[in-house]
């Protein structure tokens, strides 16, 4: 996974997953436009465990969510 991917490439490759990046590139809106994939998977907490494991070695992370919100789910947070 030691490969730089653009946002479009990430969306295609990891549709339905959470993605953890190192050294992300961001635009003027702070939107993540690409990065190096550290971990990915459908479970948010498992992906964030990878960030914990890389703590100290990586200074800049980004988390992206390509999981679709369920059609029958509403949110009152």
């Amino acid at each position, binding site marked *: 996974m030691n490969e730089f991917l653009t946002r479009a490439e990430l969306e295609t490759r990891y549709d339905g997953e959470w993605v953890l990046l190192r050294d992300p590139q961001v635009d003027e809106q702070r939107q993540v436009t690409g990065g190096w994939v550290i971990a990915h998977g459908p479970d948010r907490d498992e992906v964030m465990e990878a960030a914990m494991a890389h703590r100290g070695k990586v200074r*800049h992370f980004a988390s992206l*969510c390509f999981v679709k919100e369920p059609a029958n*789910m509403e949110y009152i947070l």
Partner: protein
Amino acid sequence: MIFRFDPTRRIIAVIATLSGPQGVSEVELALDTGASRTLLSPKVLTVVGCPIPTDAESLAVTTGSRREIMPKVVLPELAALGHAVRNFPVLAHQLPASTSVHGLLGLDFFAGCRLELDFRAGTILLEPPHD
């Protein structure tokens, strides 16, 4: 500055930059005008070097379904929508996995700001506080 959001989503998701002693993390938070406090996942806080201290002050929080006690953690900097707050006290709490965000951007982040949400255009205008 004007920022874009996706008005077709059920939440207003914005990118926040969390800076701590061990690093920086870009995460999505839900802009929540129904939350008086900003809330972040304990894991995300730990990643940037701000784990919940053993002697953390706790706050009583009324949620949509119950009353809870949540620890408070001081984050060195939280930035979003062109606005940054230093030494920002946030609640550490894990939202359910069915949410697609790592926390909530609450009203305390917007203190003194002018905030405009345009659901037709999908834009957020935030003017930081006057010094």
